[in-house]
């Protein structure tokens, strides 16, 4: 069945409609692929019975001519989305046994469009991390290998590491993730997949386990830009249950793809040219610039002067919001409960036993910066710097339509590297985090290989709610890059 696994989402959709194979056959091929790639640890929970039942229902709708946009397409869903009756863990011990009684808006939209749930994908605990090594359920292995050291387990990036790895390993046709500081675009770059984080408010956050509510946004992983635009079209839209979801029409994203980039102005921010930038990243960026210029785009130098303050701003705002959001895990309403003689002791014991080290670190930082006497100095200051970062982008949009940058400062690293120093780990998101602070859409596109044979990605950033231009430029970049390499440990 490996030929079925080779199909892109749009090709598989065409095959299903033309009755070349059934949804059940496609799902069986992916369930077999999941078995074959189990060692990567991409899934926390597999749902084969549900997948078969959903695929059989898809076959009926395909026969009846009532197929949806994702009819019969087998997907992985980050285990941060609440799925009715299916274990939802956020990769945390503290949510032991939690089976939501409701379905997140984004996942219910996917099922309405006919998609099939293969399972819940692994992630960093509460989406806090850039390597998928903070999961209570163990790290995910990247299906890509360093050709000079193929046995060394590499990270898929994070926090949506499982969602990225299963697409790269072909144990899901596409997947859903969330992006708070780069958690879709960074793992996409490290696994040679396309990762889309839409504008804040484009997709409903209802039913997604909250990390940092002003930064979180759902998005997707796919093999191609076209597949991503199909996924995004199914996920997006206003939801009365999320007051921050935008009440604006969802355009036909696919219609934008074939417009090309002739006359489009591509901004190149000089502040992203870090002194410490690795040569292969710098070279890749230059190739991206040359490709888009050759395709008819106009290249414009721009400035985003507050870029260097984005990560420190993020590491005040995100932990502050997380410490508030995670207050609900107290052993009373769901998940783990540890014993305690008093109510307070029960809370504190549960939260010590249930949260991992990185989550505790961030809850403590967040509590500290919000505590009496420090609020103005840290949190309020960070919210003001955030305003300035957003202004940088607003100013840039008068000169350009889309911005091109590297997606990550390096290719995938070892599962056991970079663990000692939290700040070193935080620097993985240096190119992605500005987008979250300014609420913009971004996409990471596989654009080349480093000398070790590992994938590298380029990032495009768009204006708020202008995913169409972003995808249009993304398609041109994908066409020019012609990335055809595949992961060694794929099914």
């Amino acid at each position, binding site marked *: 069945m490996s030929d079925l696994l080779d199909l892109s989402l749009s090709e598989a959709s065409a095959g299903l409609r033309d009755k070349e194979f059934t949804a059940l056959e496609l799902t069986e091929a992916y369930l077999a692929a999941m078995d074959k790639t189990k060692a990567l640890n991409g899934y926390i929970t597999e749902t084969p019975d549900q997948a078969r039942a959903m695929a059989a229902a898809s076959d009926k709708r395909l026969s009846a001519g009532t197929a949806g946009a994702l009819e019969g397409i087998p997907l992985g869903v980050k285990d941060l989305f609440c799925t009715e009756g299916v274990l939802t863990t956020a990769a945390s011990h503290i949510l032991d046994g*939690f089976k*939501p*009684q409701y379905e997140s808006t984004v996942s219910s939209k996917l099922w309405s469009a006919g998609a099939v749930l293969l399972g819940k994908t692994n992630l960093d605990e509460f989406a806090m991390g850039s390597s998928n090594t903070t999961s209570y359920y163990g790290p995910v292995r990247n299906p890509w290998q360093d050709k000079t050291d193929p046995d060394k387990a590499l990270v898929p990036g994070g926090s949506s590491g499982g969602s990225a790895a299963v697409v790269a390993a072909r144990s899901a046709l596409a997947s859903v993730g969330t992006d708070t500081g780069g958690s879709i675009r960074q793992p996409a770059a490290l696994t040679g997949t396309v990762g889309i984080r839409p*504008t*804040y*408010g484009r997709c409903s956050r209802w039913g997604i386990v909250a990390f940092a509510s*002003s*930064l979180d946004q759902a998005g997707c992983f796919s093999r191609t830009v076209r597949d991503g635009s199909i996924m995004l079209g199914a996920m997006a839209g206003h939801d*009365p249950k999320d*007051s*921050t979801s*935008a*009440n604006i029409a969802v355009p036909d994203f696919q219609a934008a793809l074939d417009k090309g980039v002739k006359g489009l102005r591509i901004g190149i921010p000089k502040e992203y040219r870090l002194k410490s930038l690795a040569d292969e990243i710098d070279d890749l960026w230059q190739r991206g610039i040359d490709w888009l210029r050759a395709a008819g785009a106009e290249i414009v130098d721009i400035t985003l002067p*507050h870029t260097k*303050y984005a990560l*420190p*701003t993020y*590491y*005040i705002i995100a932990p502050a919001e997380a410490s508030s959001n995670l207050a609900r895990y107290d*052993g*009373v*309403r*769901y*998940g*783990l*409960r540890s014993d305690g003689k*008093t*109510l307070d*002791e*029960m*809370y*504190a*014991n549960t*939260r*010590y036993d249930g*949260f991992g080290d990185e989550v*505790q*670190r961030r*809850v*403590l*930082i967040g*509590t*500290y910066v919000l*505590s009496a006497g420090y609020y103005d100095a*840290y949190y*309020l*200051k960070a*919210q*003001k*710097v*955030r*305003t300035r970062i*957003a202004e940088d982008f607003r100013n840039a949009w008068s000169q350009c339509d889309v911005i091109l940058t590297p997606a990550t400062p390096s290719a995938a690293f070892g599962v056991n590297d970079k663990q000692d*120093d*939290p*700040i070193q780990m935080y620097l993985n998101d240096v190119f992605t985090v500005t987008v979250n*602070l*300014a*609420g913009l859409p971004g996409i990471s596109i596989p654009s080349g290989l480093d000398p070790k044979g590992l994938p590298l990605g380029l990032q495009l950033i768009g204006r708020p*709610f202008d995913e169409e231009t972003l995808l249009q430029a993304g398609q041109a970049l994908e066409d020019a890059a012609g990335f055809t390499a595949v992961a060694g440990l794929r099914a």
Partner: protein
Amino acid sequence: MAIDTKTVARVAHLARIALPEDRQESLASELDAIVAWVEQLSEVDTDNVQPMSSVVEMTALWREDKVTDGGYPEKVVANAPDPVGDFFAVPKVVE
């Protein structure tokens, strides 16, 4: 050092995390390094800058003030670690 073990203990109490004493020292130095790193924000001129309150421009929607959901207590307590009937149960708080 802005964050010492005393501060860690105080913040851990505020966050209701029963941090053992032998974790306080290492966390104090980690948190101190993070706080020292974010201090660089003081370089940024933010006089007359409004703190961001909403990341995208949107008008808050109004809806009629009426109950639109609920009436299923068994679902609400379905995941509770120790429910009693339709109630959450916790260690006794009143003697």
